């Protein structure tokens, strides 16, 4: 088999808009016939992109789950895709959306409506990275020497991801979005998100809820908001602007060479000029004005960065989710096809040092303490408590393989006796040998799934799809924690 297509879906339910895409990913053989088989995704084609729907709401802050279900059903129909054909993909639910009352219902519904192996996830870090990929920032970073940041500005939040030489190096999320301030056509402020209150105060800005706001005053707020975000992104100022940051801060300011803005607000940057309150409030919020003031900043060139047009604006996240979320594991693996797919398995990392690899006693201690950590972190289950990600093994000799499989299996069986399946992820190409060694020891209790050549970190969750052609495993790593720069 030289090539195979899998269909992948991306769904993005945002604070203001909802969209989906269907793509197909081509797996190609990336090894010669004289090597161990290895496959990679060699081509990603967009098959179908839905129109951008307004996210259906019930009242002010409750998402209409059934409305979303209806949208998806209609879109699947239009795309002429049946759920059984979908083998991979991701559903992104923007943070603010998912925190609404009926998040559970929505996630549930999406899981049902989005095919066999689609994961519902909502990490702002992952969103930022996927949007950066969809916007073309990752690709651009491979062709330049410095750092490019893409910021995807939607209704509630702005997800930024920094890329350097093809690698995402950091992410940060802001309370910056088009729907943080909502307006009537006459300019009456209907809503101001509490999330920006602290920042408004620090800036000495006031927005009168329930009253009419002047165009100049609103413009001032939009400008300040845009600048604060740009200050933080470019490292110009991080104290006040930091008040807008959701979750973890950047450890250090990262010098930025190029900038792209995607998301709905990114699209609005190329919209018509916003000259009065009627222009500003045409979508019932101050999004058009936010886009316009950012465009003004770009034209003024106040910030020492090169602004580039993104490949995608409003669909950057959904395209990233649908086309860029899936990886392929190494193709010599140890699996039981009937145990797949498995979803949402948290990662437990076993990072071994040379000393531990050289000394069986130290190795035993290390495995023991990691398993103890696993016991505390994750609930006991008859299924899979975690996926053990092993790294640090340079060269694995047969002797080391024996010691390692002995320690891993014996202690696993003692510590997690109720678990029926043990999942191991190796950094280097050794999954088949290690899986085989573990299975010879465990004899089915537990069953062994061992894959390799997938990079995962603490805090990641991983999904393994059904094997394609026997041993090719689609993998979605949901990066929730982000590696800071080394």
């Amino acid at each position, binding site marked *: 088999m030289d090539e195979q297509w899998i269909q992948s879906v991306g769904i993005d339910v945002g604070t203001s808009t909802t969209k989906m895409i269907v793509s197909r990913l081509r797996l*190609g053989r*990336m*090894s*010669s*016939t004289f*090597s161990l088989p290895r496959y990679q995704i060699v081509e990603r084609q967009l098959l179908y992109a839905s129109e951008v729907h307004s996210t259906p709401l019930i009242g002010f802050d409750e998402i209409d789950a059934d409305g979303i279900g209806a949208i998806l059903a209609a879109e699947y129909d239009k795309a002429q895709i049946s759920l059984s054909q979908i083998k991979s993909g991701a559903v992104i639910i923007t943070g603010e959306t998912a925190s609404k009352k009926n998040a559970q219902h929505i996630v549930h519904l999406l899981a049902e409506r989005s095919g066999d192996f689609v994961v519902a996830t909502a990490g702002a870090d992952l969103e930022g990275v996927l949007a950066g990929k969809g916007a073309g920032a990752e690709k651009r970073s491979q062709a330049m*020497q410095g750092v490019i940041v893409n910021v995807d500005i939607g209704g509630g939040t702005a997800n930024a991801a920094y890329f350097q030489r093809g690698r995402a190096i950091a992410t940060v999320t802001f309370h910056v979005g088009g729907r943080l301030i909502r307006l009537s056509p006459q300019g009456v402020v209907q809503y101001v998100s509490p999330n920006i209150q602290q920042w408004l105060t620090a800036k000495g800005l006031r927005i009168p809820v329930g009253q009419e706001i002047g165009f100049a005053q609103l413009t001032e707020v939009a400008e300040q908001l845009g600048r604060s975000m740009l200050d933080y992104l470019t490292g110009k100022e991080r104290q006040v602007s930091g008040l807008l940051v959701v979750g973890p801060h950047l450890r250090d300011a990262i010098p930025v060479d190029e900038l792209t803005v995607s998301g709905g607000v990114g699209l609005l940057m190329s919209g018509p000029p916003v000259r009065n309150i009627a222009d500003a409030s045409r979508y019932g919020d101050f999004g058009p004005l936010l886009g316009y003031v950012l465009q003004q900043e770009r034209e003024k060139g106040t910030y020492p960065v090169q602004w580039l047009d993104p490949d995608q604006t409003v669909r950057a996240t959904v395209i990233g989710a649908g086309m860029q979320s899936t990886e392929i594991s190494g193709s010599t693996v140890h699996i039981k096809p009937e145990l797949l797919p498995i979803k949402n398995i948290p990662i437990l990392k076993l990072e071994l040092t040379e000393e531990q690899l050289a000394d069986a006693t130290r190795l035993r201690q290390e495995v023991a303490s990691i398993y103890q950590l696993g016991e505390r972190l994750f609930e006991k289950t008859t299924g899979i408590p975690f996926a053990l990600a092993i790294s640090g093994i340079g060269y694995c000799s047969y002797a080391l393989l024996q010691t390692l499989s002995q320690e891993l299996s014996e202690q696993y069986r003692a510590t997690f006796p109720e678990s029926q399946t043990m999942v191991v992820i190796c950094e280097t190409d050794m999954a088949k040998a290690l899986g085989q060694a573990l299975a010879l020891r465990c004899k089915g209790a537990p069953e062994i799934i061992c894959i390799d050549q997938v990079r995962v970190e603490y805090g990641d969750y991983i999904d393994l799809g059904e094997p394609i052609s026997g041993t090719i495993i689609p993998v979605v790593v949901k990066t929730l924690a982000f590696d800071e720069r080394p």
Partner: protein
Amino acid sequence: MNTKTTVLGQTYQFRDLKEVFAKANEDKSGDQLAGIAAADSRERVAAKQVLADLTLADIRNNPMVPAEEDEVSRVIEEGINEKIYNEIKNWSVAELREYILSHQAGDNELKRISRGLSSEMIAATAKLMSNLDLITAASKIKVVTHANTAIGQRGVLASRVQPNHPSDNVQGIKASLYEGLSYGIGDAVIGINPVIDTADSVKDILNMTKDVMTKFDIPTQNCVLAHVSTQMRAIRNGAPADLIFQSLAGSEKGNNAFGIDVALLDEADELMRKEGTSYGPNFWYFETGQGSELSAEAHHGMDQVTMEARCYGLARKYNPFIVNTVVGFIGPEYLYDSRQVIRAGLEDHYMGKMHGLPMGCDVCYTNHMKVDQNDMDNLGILLSSAGVNFVIGVAMADDVMLNYQSTSFHDIAAFREVMGLRPAPDFEKWLEKMGIMENGRLTAKAGDPTIFM
């Protein structure tokens, strides 16, 4: 046809033309392996003596691989210009050798006479030539070809940059490519031997090389040396290929072992005319090498020099942009030591040029041959003096994918500097524009691959 002679008091009667041809060869382990080599120096001289007196008509009238049995023989036979042949058919091989080496035979004369010669006749003259004869004759023939740019001019030594990678990692290929370009290497072709023979992988590499060429406006051509049918699939899928590549053997059976025949080459030729991305008129890149027919047991009992000449007879049909003899890749069972490799390199270059082909040479060896880098230095200089069109450039001569050693970027720069040779004219202008070369010498910037990042 006389096949009998006496040398130093001993009489030798050769069975047939094949035996004369084989035994007239300089010593080669491949002919020994085939069991057809001369037993000793005396028998070798006897065979040369018989060969010298045979006429060109003797050779043509006693086909060693009959045209009815072999399509390569048919291609060679059909290519002969009867008018020219008739003028010289009664010449002995000795007379032909002397004509080729005479002052009256210049570039034009040799190109003309070439059209009346079969590959076997050209091989016969090589067997009567010393190494310096081979150099002298070849140096008279100038073969200029053009795809995107022209190479082969007098005073030009072009080069293929060969940035192979053990797993076809596109970034890794690019890294070696940048290194090569920074030494002024790559005017003949940017050519990669892929590990993975799939249309996808070929297309990826062609796209990458084309992107680099476009980005830096490099006047050269790209090529991925997969099997011709894989390249054809990639090209039909839209891959940008300036040249199309195939290895050739000197017999139909040998070509079948390579998975090709004349019909397939014709089809590829047609495809390149329609979908090749270079200007032309020359689209092909062929590789050959003594011994490949025997290794496929497709040598028809013939010696490896003659079989090699027949590859050129086949190549000539397609007006290639470059032909490369990969002289030392095949191993010690065909060319045992540096003496045999150097001899073979000079023979192949001469025979190719006598066919009117744009000959280059992969001056190379494997680690189980009695050859080392010093021998490559020697052969490289000898071929440079013989006017070889191009040689192969590999980072520090060490090909990490094919596991053999060739000539390095440094070596080619040294051949040029020592022999007063230049890169192809368009490429040299580009090197000057990039600040890598000035007045034919590398500048202080040369050797820094990051100028392309």
